């Protein structure tokens, strides 16, 4: 019997579970179909930024960055948070204007983001080819982390507070009564040996965990889980690919992003350039396979941005799924039916960086039952009402 079942042991689920336990909520169970760091939390490039175009995102990320800064010493595990900044490039007059507007909004929210010209861009990244770049925005407080230790840190801290975490455990159904979930049906899994596809296979019998509350933070798998309840979610998984180069001595300060083609790249603690780019078309659906097309698209964009990287080598490529909503805003908060279901998904490829602050807020929301302006804005029913939000600074 669990008081709360959290579906998804990525950073969102674990941060939520940790904060629930911190608030004194007992008997929290977190389940995940695969191993820890198997989903997007283990596949992302580790970018953490407050440069967004909506005030909500900006303010939330300011808080999240503050949590990231203290994470290592609070949770007692290194996360290698380095605030080298994010440099967003604009190649057209229109995009430059949009950046300027975003910068003004960010400044109103207390961020030191500024517009930089080509000369200053080259000071920040001397190797950057600036022809064709009209303008850029730079927030020195943005940064990169090594993502996996966040997952372990939250998992260890949650477990220390009594949270039960079960990887390799899939949700195969629910029991409901009178518009409430009364139980979650679970089945053990194992990794499939076929196809290098990261798929899981059943590996045991189904059991039922009775529960009071359910939170779905299963990232790209959220719609599948919600469907088992008859709840139709509008978000769709889209494969996004990423790769890492050989490690070099530190040379790149910020994460550089180009909204024109979705290119982003940064240098990890180990010295690798980690990055991705938008590839068109993208197969819809859960797909974590790698493609050659991505390597060509990415390398053309990256070498175009930093020509000296032509001789630098790719060591490995992988992929994960962005969880994309129709309006670019996440889906967070309780739903009408079942009444004890809370959603936290649809984070558009920046769920990892938002999880530290969202984990706190979702835990509060689940524990107290109170809603706030945030949860109203990002509720599932906004799509039916036509009350859409908007965020245009999406990369990758």
């Amino acid at each position, binding site marked *: 019997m669990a008081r709360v079942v959290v579906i998804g042991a990525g950073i969102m689920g674990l941060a939520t579970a940790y904060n629930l336990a911190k608030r004194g909520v007992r008997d929290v169970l977190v389940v995940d179909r695969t191993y820890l760091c198997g989903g997007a939390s283990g596949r992302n490039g580790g970018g953490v930024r407050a440069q967004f175009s909506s005030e909500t995102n900006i303010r939330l990320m300011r808080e999240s960055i503050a949590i990231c800064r203290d994470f290592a010493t609070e949770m007692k595990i290194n996360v290698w948070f380095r605030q080298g900044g994010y440099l967003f490039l604009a190649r057209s007059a229109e995009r430059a204007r949009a950046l300027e507007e975003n910068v003004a909004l960010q400044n109103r929210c207390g961020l030191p983001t500024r517009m930089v010209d080509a000369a200053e861009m080259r000071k920040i990244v001397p190797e950057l080819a600036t022809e064709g770049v009209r303008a850029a925005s730079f927030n020195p407080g943005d940064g990169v982390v090594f993502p996996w230790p966040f997952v372990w840190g939250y998992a260890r801290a949650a477990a220390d507070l009594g949270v039960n975490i079960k990887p390799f455990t899939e949700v195969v159904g629910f029991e409901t009564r009178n518009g409430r979930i009364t139980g979650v049906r679970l089945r053990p899994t194992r990794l499939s040996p076929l196809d290098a596809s990261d798929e899981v296979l059943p590996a045991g019998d189904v059991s039922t965990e009775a529960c009071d509350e359910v939170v779905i933070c299963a990232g790209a798998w959220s719609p599948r889980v919600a469907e088992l309840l008859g709840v139709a979610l509008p978000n769709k998984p889209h494969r996004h690919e990423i790769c890492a180069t050989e490690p070099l001595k530190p040379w790149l300060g910020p994460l550089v992003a180009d909204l024109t083609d979705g290119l982003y790249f940064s240098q990890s603690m180990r010295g690798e350039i980690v990055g991705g780019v938008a590839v068109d078309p993208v197969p819809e659906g859960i797909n974590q396979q790698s493609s050659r097309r991505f390597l060509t698209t990415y390398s053309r964009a990256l070498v175009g941005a930093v020509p000296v990287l032509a001789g630098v080598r*790719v060591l490995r490529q992988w992929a994960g799924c962005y969880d994309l909503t129709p309006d670019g805003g996440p889906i967070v908060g309780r739903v009408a039916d079942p009444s004890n279901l809370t959603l936290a998904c649809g984070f558009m490829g920046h769920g990892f960086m938002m999880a530290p602050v969202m984990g706190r807020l979702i835990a509060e929301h689940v524990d107290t039952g109170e809603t706030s302006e945030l949860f109203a804005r990002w509720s599932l029913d906004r799509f039916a009402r036509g009350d859409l939000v908007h965020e245009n600074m999406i990369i990758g």
Partner: protein
Amino acid sequence: MTAKAMLCRCEDVTLDEVMEALEAGHRDIESVKRYTGFGTGWCQGKQCVVACARVLAKATGGAPELPITPRPPLHPVALGVLASLGDAEEG
């Protein structure tokens, strides 16, 4: 001289570290890989995956099952070479 038995040369992961990862609760090969970093360096596991699988199997009492997922490229490939390739049709 030090007493390290280097299980993953490329990432300097010692045998001791793999044992500590197991003790910390990382029991499957993908989790141990993420925690220790073995198999994520220059050779991408060519030298160490088998050795690590054996260590895990011995420690957990099971048989080794799967390797870490083989991902492209097999050897490091220059970005300039990748950029020179023609457009791929979606497969």
